[in-house]
């Protein structure tokens, strides 16, 4: 794969990672708050 190909792949993975941290954190926080509120 060319260097540009690698750059595209790693850039995509970087944004996927940042998005994953953000989304999963929000999901976990909302579910946890939901459980606490129900109790």
């Amino acid at each position, binding site marked *: 794969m060319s260097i540009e190909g690698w750059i595209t792949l*790693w850039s995509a993975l970087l944004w996927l990672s940042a998005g*994953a941290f953000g989304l999963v954190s929000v999901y976990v926080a909302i*579910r946890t708050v939901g459980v606490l509120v129900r109790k």
Partner: protein
Amino acid sequence: MVDSTYLFLAIFTLAYVIAILLAHRGRAQGDGGLKEFFISGRDLGLGTAIATLGATEIGLITIAYNAQKGFNEGFSAFHIGLAALIGCGFVGAIGFVVKPMRRTGVLTLPEFYQQRFGRDIRIFGAIVMALGGILNMGLFLKVASVFLAAMLSVKGADVNVNILMVTLIAGAVLYTCYGGMRSVIITDIFQFVLLSAGLLIAVVYLTNLVPLGEAISIVRENKGIGGFDPFANESFGLSYVLWMILVAGVVSAAIWPTALTRALCIKDEATVQRAYLIASVIFLARMVVPAFLGVLAFSYFNTGTLGPAEMLASHGSDADLVATPLMLGHAMPGWLLAFLAVAMFASFMSTQDSYLFCWASILSRDVLGPIFGTVENEQAQKRGTRIIIVVIALYELYWGLIYEGREDIWDYLAVSGSIYFCSGIVLMVGGLYWKGATRRGALWALILGFSAIIALSPIKIALGLEGVSSPIIGFAAIGLSLLGFVIGSLSEGRGARKTEKRA
């Protein structure tokens, strides 16, 4: 400057402690029996399961070693994250190991060894498991202390690494002994959210200083194709990439006890599989985001305008390890650095508590328990686990001071962990999926898998094997272990069949 950093550090630390205490209020149950103490009552839902899987496997050590890899190898270090995504995604997609292991109903993993291979394999397997795991966590404390001290030193705070080590480990021991697995999991949720926020804020703030395009140009200029292509990078190559798919992916998710134990705590098999599938993107992120911080640190100190080169040079051979915390300390305002320091501390605690509890509970329940006949004695089990937690913590202090290996931290972790997982993967997979597996095969697999210890750099040097890469030694150890497992099982199975015929 140091005054405002200290002030914010005090405020954020206080807020953190209050939040942890609130999270615990009325929930840490110390009298709920062995099931409550060891596997948190086996009642985890999806959200909690993902958070505890993520928080356990993202420690300050994870941030430090990935940042070091990113600093040294550039973007090509991201392949470790991709390997983790592939490996963990595979585990989640088919429930590999985690689903049938949850079905067994055991409280600890060596208990499965007893179910499948007998009591002596449980004890021997538990010793190998704990030995690999405890060696593996030997550098956690030292690396965390060096990282935090370097970060705060830039703001003028003169933090003694040894005193910080004692403080950190004392906090972790008190907290882990307090409420067992329930205590560990409750705080994992809070810590996961906090450390994710800390990492994302750091990335956003720093990419304003060093944009992605500029970081790419600097890495390209200084590291060439090896800074992007892991197959062209001299430190990696094909065998390393394959080794990572196994270690950072399949083993980290499905074989490594701190992660696999979480499967035992989840309420049902379907939730186990879904939790692992979703967590696969966290396994990607835990490698890629810190490695990107390392890439940014490399760029930061190579722009010629942002990071003073002499700051890095003064740390000699530790420069690659402290480059990221030095950048964080140098680039960020005091309040943000203080928030990040507390988030880093949270990430240290979330891993440290899980690891301390995991190895101590295995030694107490699966080594001392069967030997002294106290497997079902609740008081003896809790007391034994707590005493062993303290002993492991003291060892960690000692190991942090004496170990002088030459490998990167991640490579040390992979090698020390392989002492367990080279035979662990054979016993778990073979025991769950092959009906013909027997006690003799398991014994031979455990003995032969131990050969992975050769890859530890002091032993490698002593044996004159410096030219052989750690992945090659690791694959060879797994091959030997598998061979022993198959031949041992077949020979015992044949012997047993002959005896049956004669009878």
